[in-house]
């Protein structure tokens, strides 16, 4: 996708989205993803961080047929087409849930929370979902 013209000013900011909830059960992750797609279309310098139950959003083999809600894990795979390539996963959150990089649907950088903290310090804007 080519990207939409940025509104009044063609400024690019470093915007980090922190996904910290399970993908289903609340709408936060899904609507967060909608926000991420729009900001990506506006050509912003985005990064995504998955912390806590947020790591489940990237888990392979999701099946939402039993809850009557459309699954959206595949949308995370499309992010790369929007030039969203900075995906970070908190190492401790992943291990705590018995998961590893191989359980995830997309390529991510797994890192310690202190490194994630440093990345947060570099951002202009941080939005949690």
């Amino acid at each position, binding site marked *: 996708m080519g990207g939409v013209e*940025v509104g009044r000013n063609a400024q690019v900011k470093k915007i980090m989205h922190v996904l910290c909830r399970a993908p289903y059960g609340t*709408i936060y992750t899904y*609507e967060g993803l909608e926000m991420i797609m*729009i900001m990506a279309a506006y050509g912003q310098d985005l990064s995504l961080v998955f912390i806590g139950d947020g790591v489940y959003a990237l888990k392979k083999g999701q099946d939402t047929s039993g809850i009557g809600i459309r699954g959206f894990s595949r949308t995370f795979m499309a992010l790369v087409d929007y030039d969203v390539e900075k995906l970070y996963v908190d190492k401790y959150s992943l291990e705590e849930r018995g998961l590893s990089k191989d359980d995830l649907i997309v390529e991510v950088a797994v890192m310690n929370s202190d490194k994630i903290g440093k990345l947060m310090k570099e951002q202009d804007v941080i939005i949690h979902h």
Partner: protein
Amino acid sequence: MKIGILLKEGPYNSQASDTAFKFAEAAIKKGHTVDALFLYNDGVTNATKLMDPPRDDRNIAARWSEFSQVHGVEIFACIAASKRRGINDDILIQGGAITGLGTLTDIAIRNDRLVTFGG
């Protein structure tokens, strides 16, 4: 400092809207500029004029509307989030407008800070 506010929680159920309001008031009192309030997730339900709480309680929607008019702060409700929750132009408070997430992107770009409440 120029501040944008993002409110991600509906009224009453959570204190987020009250806290955002108190923050906005305090920021202005301290000489900061509150540029805009953007409503997302259930936060869009803060902008319905159909809100009618008991008289001895605060009317959160009316309070935001008054705040918007007194201080010239625009209130934006995300269109996708609004449509899901039955919020439309007919029931919107004065000072409110329904808009896209591009507006939030603009708010994030043009302000010194984007401060998030709730969610």
